[in-house]
């Protein structure tokens, strides 16, 4: 970020987007809009004042008149901040979401990749340069917004904090958009834009999490911080907790956007200058680090509501419910980690050759993903033990909970490993878009498993449970089970799926032994 204004990529965008005529026009339009908004606010307040004067006593009328100017400025400030917030976040996200895929489309990307610009320089140049027009528009409106805020009775700190909140959120969204753009080829650009829209919706919608067992997650949405800064007492939501201590929404937002943004930046820096088929979001160790970070975050943001407390029961009433939630989340985390660490066919073949000669280890960056999923699960379990012990003063822990969590996590690990290895096998076939098709096949599999379970349920409940246990990890989430006393069907499912994993590994190995075809047709 330092000296981004001399970054060649930023300078290119500045020159292209902010030619003097366009800059003057944008500034004039922004100022005009501010003036029109100001007039509209004045007119609105005037009508309220007239109504109030008609109904008030002389003393009351004086106090209304005194507050007239302040209220008008405050209303204008709210409008300006709202409009700038929407424009800044939306524009930043969507311009960054087209930054790399757009260049791929124009075929200028290759020339940029052959320059001496590092990935970090390209990242900063694009992040600051792609949305430069909206940055400029916000900059033009900033003095008016500042005056409106101060005249509206807000402190300078509050006005600056609002700007910082918007800036942090838009940079975070810009990073997210750029990552989506990196994943899209020119023909899938539309998909990238849909993804950006979904990201926008999710980011804003995260505000709804303030009532959940992890209220801090709501801080990803700038709405929480805005309400804290600008809302009156009645509108404010309870402060989020970090390791059980209340902190401000602003700080929580900065922490979350900063940490998630850092992961996005890491993925971008690793991959920006790579050729499309060689993109791999994270190295194996980084993926384990990311999985550990996400697990850590669960315990950091947890808000337990033990049944004995005066608070209404929430998500986490005892250690068992926390453990169950962590196992479920780890199913998702392990699957995403598996997706992020799938190895391209050529790398896997080289790894296999090197492994045969002893040059490469099982835990290699280009090897199969399953050993790393195992490590990740072990790290997750270790963090779970630590987390539950740390929260032991609020949520008493017993050995049975830890034992049950271990078996549950093992079950989830086996099913996720099977699915990830299946996707890895898909990548070795000649399928077009193998990962997408592989995921669709997995969806079909789980749909079929549901139907089979329902069919088995017609004969008896026991048959239904057996089918469910053999084909899916659902029974792992039975909250009634304590210790290792899971039904036999659960262990049978574990054994069956371990066998399936061995079969998929054999299939992968035989695929890797196939000879290569010579080059494409002339």
């Amino acid at each position, binding site marked *: 970020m330092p000296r981004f204004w001399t970054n*060649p*990529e930023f*300078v*290119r965008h500045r*020159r*292209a*987007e902010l030619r003097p005529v366009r800059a003057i026009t944008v500034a004039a339009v922004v100022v005009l809009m501010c003036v029109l908004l100001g007039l509209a606010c004045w007119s609105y307040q005037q009508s309220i004042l007239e109504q109030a004067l008609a109904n008030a006593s002389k003393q009351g009328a004086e106090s209304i008149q005194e507050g007239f100017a302040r209220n008008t400025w405050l209303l204008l400030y709210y409008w300006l901040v709202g409009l700038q917030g929407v424009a800044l976040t939306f524009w930043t996200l969507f311009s960054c979401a087209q930054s790399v895929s757009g260049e791929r489309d*124009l*075929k*200028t990307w*290759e*020339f*940029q*990749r*052959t*320059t*001496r*610009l*590092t990935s970090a320089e390209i990242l900063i140049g694009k992040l600051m340069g792609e949305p430069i027009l909206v940055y400029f528009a916000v900059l033009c409106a900033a003095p008016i917004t500042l005056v409106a805020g101060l005249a509206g009775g807000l402190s300078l700190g509050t006005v600056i904090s609002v700007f910082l909140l918007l800036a942090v959120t838009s940079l975070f969204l810009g990073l997210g958009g750029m990552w989506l753009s990196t994943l899209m080829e020119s023909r899938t650009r539309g998909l990238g834009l849909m993804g950006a829209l979904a990201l926008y919706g999710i980011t804003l919608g995260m505000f709804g999490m303030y009532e959940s067992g992890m209220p801090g997650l709501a801080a990803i949405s700038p709405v929480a911080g805005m309400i804290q800064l600008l809302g009156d007492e009645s509108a404010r939501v309870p402060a989020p907790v970090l390791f059980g201590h209340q902190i401000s929404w602003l700080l929580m937002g900065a922490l979350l956007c900063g940490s998630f943004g850092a992961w996005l930046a890491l993925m971008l820096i690793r991959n920006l*200058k*790579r*050729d499309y*088929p*060689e993109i791999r979001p994270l190295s194996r160790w980084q993926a384990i680090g990311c999985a550990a970070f996400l697990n850590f975050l669960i315990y950091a943001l947890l808000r337990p509501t033990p049944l004995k407390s005066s608070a209404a029961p929430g998500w986490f009433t005892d250690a068992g419910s926390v453990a169950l939630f962590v196992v479920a989340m780890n199913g998702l985390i392990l699957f995403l980690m598996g997706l992020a660490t799938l190895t391209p*066919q*050529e*790398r896997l*073949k*080289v790894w296999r050759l090197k492994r045969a000669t002893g040059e490469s280890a099982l835990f290699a960056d280009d090897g199969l993903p399953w050993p790393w999923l195992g490590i990740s699960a072990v790290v997750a379990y270790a963090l779970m033990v630590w987390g539950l012990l740390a929260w032991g003063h609020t949520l008493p822990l017993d050995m049975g909970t830890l034992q049950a969590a271990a078996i549950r996590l093992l079950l989830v690990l086996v099913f996720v490993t099977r699915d990830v290895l299946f996707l890895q096998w898909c990548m070795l076939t*000649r399928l077009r878009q193998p990962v997408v098709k592989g995921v669709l096949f997995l969806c079909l599999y789980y749909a079929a498993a549901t139907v089979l379970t329902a069919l088995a349920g017609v004969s008896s409940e026991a048959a239904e449970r057996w089918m469910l246990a053999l084909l899916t990890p659902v029974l792992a989430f039975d909250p009634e089970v304590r210790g290792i006393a899971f039904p036999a069907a659960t262990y049978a499912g574990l054994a069956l799926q371990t066998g399936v994993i061995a079969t998929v590994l054999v299939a992968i190995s035989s695929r890797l032994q*196939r000879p*290569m*075809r*010579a*080059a*494409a*047709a*002339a």
Partner: protein
Amino acid sequence: MIEFVHLRKEYDNVLAVEDLSLNIPEGEIFGLIGPNGAGKTTTIRMACGLLAPTLGRALIAGVDVAQEPERAQQHIGYLSDFFAVYEDLKVWEYLDYFAHAYKMPEAEIPARITEVIAQVNLEVKRDAMIRGLSRGMKQRLGIARAIIHRPRVMLLDEPASGLDPKARLELRNLLRSLRDQGATILISSHILTELEGFCTSIGIMEKGRMVRSGSIEEVTAAAASTRLVRLSWAGDSLAVAEGKLKSDPRISEVNLAAGMGTFRFSGAEEELAPVLAALVAANVRLTSFGEVKQTVEELYMKLSTHEVM
């Protein structure tokens, strides 16, 4: 200057380049020839860091491109068969962007931009928007981009495809001047006449493998064990000339008609001098005598296995 060490590239199920080892010394112009899909583009893309090799290394000026891409790229000028440019910039702004992106010293940039713009004959368009340039001008601007940072190595992937004849000529002249300045050039093409009289070495690629490589002379020598010599003379010396030539055991396929003809000679180039002297001594009034050089096209046709991939 350009070195490939057991370079290999696989795409999914396809082997694009197989165990390619090659060393191109400084100042050489190496023509990579072969049919479409032979692996020429993949090789060049690996050399300029756009593709990571599956195995092996590509070194530019001694720098491993995969390990230190930014350091290697300071030496590389890359030109491909498409000339995509940023349409919303002015000509000088475009070159300024790349000069900064290649991290040239700030003080040198303005003069270098002027110099390069003159080299590609775009002086009058210096302050024009790129979107207003003709296709040929955009192509010339693309060339200017590739040479703005004074690269020691030029990697050119089918650079002349899509160029009009005038632009091709200009490109050829520009590359010649770069060669004269000591640049090493790796150029791929399947249009062999493009490389004629221009390359000092060639490599023939087929099915991802280098079938033959070396200097034009070496490849020619490998391709043909004999030299084709053409001569012409004045007067009626057909019988004398034929007799003299047939008496030399190194000469075969003597094919003479009135006043001119050809023969094949199996010795070295300098060994042709005594043959010429013998003809002159036999009172054959020679008006011309010299080896017929094979064109790159003829060489390729001779050496290629013509396998369709």
